[in-house]
């Protein structure tokens, strides 16, 4: 309390690192996007943007131990983007004269399109901030992440649904709630081949597609406001169909067919990867059985790495 004793003798330095305790940070994976396209900001300017489908049960965990000399070393050493993110965070905290040791442990499979790199980057930014006993706003974390790896996604917002400009690191629209509870049966098209996201030229959308994205944004807003997985699924399906014109996935029509056969809410894709997900309403009776049947059908159709993923809200009591 103000004026009460205790800290009179020594000044309080909120930005001083607690050298005896390493900072920790955590960030989740994602399963591609529900919607991706270009969207108008409030001034009418167009931005590339997306709504991430977060996977909160797979995480990257980062530890940061502050050292009194410049430079960040990282374990394992190939996580260069994470190290860069740690340096950028030190600079953001006006502590570029300091450095440290960053350790990243991730349960997210690398190179499978689950956004492991972004998760490492976001976890590292949070770990550095935590070492300074600070928390950063999601918008700041996103900006630093984009700076560290050119394009990012919105996982810093956890389960809060946002329309995120992935190349600028800014939020175009905050939908004001979490996604409705869904299950995603995920698998890989194209024999699981990997896509180098950053090497892809950005899609050039037609006027009709750009206009369609405006409606998709409205559908997403409605589905989040009313927690309607069916509307969200329909929007994701249309976004996936548009993506198919720009980066075709083998057997996409097969995936749509499976979704239809089992009355799923819809289909989502990683718009710059090979992941496909079939969306189910988590609150529908018999969802686990339907998920198993869809997983079997997908495996039978030749899709690789079929996984059933409940998308839990972080705030969900468990």
């Amino acid at each position: 309390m103000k004026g009460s004793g205790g800290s009179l003798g020594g000044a309080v330095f909120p930005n001083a690192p607690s050298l005896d305790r390493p900072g920790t940070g955590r960030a989740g994976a994602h399963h591609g996007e529900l919607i991706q396209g270009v969207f108008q900001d409030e001034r009418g300017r167009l931005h590339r943007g997306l709504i991430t489908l977060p996977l909160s049960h797979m995480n990257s965990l980062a530890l940061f131990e502050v050292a009194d000399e410049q430079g960040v070393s990282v374990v394992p050493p190939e996580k260069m983007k994470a190290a860069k993110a740690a340096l950028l965070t030190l600079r953001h905290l006006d502590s570029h004269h300091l450095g440290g040791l960053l350790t990243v442990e991730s349960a997210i499979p690398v190179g499978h399109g689950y956004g492991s790199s972004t998760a490492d980057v976001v976890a590292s930014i949070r770990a550095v901030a935590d070492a300074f006993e600070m928390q950063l706003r999601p918008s700041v974390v996103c900006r630093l992440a984009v700076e560290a790896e050119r394009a990012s996604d919105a996982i810093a917002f956890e389960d809060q649904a946002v329309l995120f400009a992935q190349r600028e690191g800014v939020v175009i629209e905050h939908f004001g709630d979490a996604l409705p509870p869904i299950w995603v049966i995920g698998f890989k098209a194209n024999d699981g081949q990997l896509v180098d996201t950053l090497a892809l030229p950005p899609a050039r959308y037609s006027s009709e597609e750009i206009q369609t994205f405006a409606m998709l944004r409205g559908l997403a807003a409605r589905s989040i406001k009313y927690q309607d997985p069916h509307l969200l699924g329909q929007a994701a399906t249309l976004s996936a169909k548009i993506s198919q014109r720009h980066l075709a996935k083998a057997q996409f029509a097969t995936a749509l067919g499976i979704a239809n056969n089992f009355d799923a809410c819809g289909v989502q894709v990683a718009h710059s990867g090979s992941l496909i997900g079939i969306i189910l309403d988590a609150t529908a009776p018999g969802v686990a059985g339907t998920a198993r049947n869809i997983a079997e059908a997908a495996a039978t159709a030749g899709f690789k790495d079929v996984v059933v993923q409940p998308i839990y809200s972080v705030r969900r009591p468990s």
Partner: protein
Amino acid sequence: MRFDADYFEALETPRMARLAANVVAAAFPLMKLMPARYILDRAEAAGELKGKAHIVETTSGTFGMAVALLAAARDYRLTLVTASTLMDSKYQARLQRLGAEVIALDDPRGDGNQKGRLESLDGILRQVPDAFWTRQYDSDGNWLAYARLADLFVRSMGQIDCLVGCVGTGGSLCGTGTFLRSVFPDLKIIGVDTHRSILFGQPLGKRVLRGLGNSVLPKNVRHELVDEIHWVGAYPAFHAAHRLFRQHGMFMGPTSGAAALVGQWVSKTNPEARVAVIMPDEGHRHADTVYNDIWLSTLPGWRTPASAFPTKISRIEPKPETAWTRFDWRRRSLEDVMQLQTTDR
């Protein structure tokens, strides 16, 4: 940032009004602002509209008003070609106050003289070769602009099963319908036309209900999207406009009345369906006519009861202004439907 962006976006935004448990109407003050702004924005972005460019268009009114508002705010020169039967002197004076030059042609046949208007517009384009024609009849920009309406509809309704709207240029119904159907493939699109408009195969004649229908066929009318077409006579439309005012406090134009009439009928016959209705304009322009009992009493047959429900027809033909007919169009081309009409004879 465009200094006018906010103002025109607000003015072109409809009020989303619930007409019944399963019906939401988008009630526009001036719907045509949506395509007009989109077409001008696109032309500006493409460098087709620069400095003090000269814009030209043929219009019966509201598209002209929309372009005139934008042209005044953005400092463009504007010439509008219309017909004397389509525009009263007060409306013309409003357009002129905005700086628009209005050419009102004679209309001896009472069909809107669209052919004469297009010839006059051609003449201007020959004299002013770098004039910009907004081309609401066949510009893609017209229908593309209505993604914004599709966005507003899904935000306020979610799933949509039926879309009801008037057809004049085809932009609003076919545009909104295209976007909504891309996400709701089973969407039923129900068009509202009027007797003696040629859009859906009727012979050309004098129309009493204005603001929908046409005497020429614009490219933006895409018949293959339409499941069902209604021809609403002037009188049921006028009565519907009066009811909108009394029952919902909405002072709308008679085309909005026609759309509401059909929309409410669709909702009653499909109680499970979620029905979206497009109501394109307000009633102020019609205060001395549609909302004036003395003017109404001069209309031949006005006291005859107007149809309260549509008569399903299989032969497409004009009916009196008291009548309301409908036809199962079934997403066919005009050619296909008309071919069957002649072989059936």
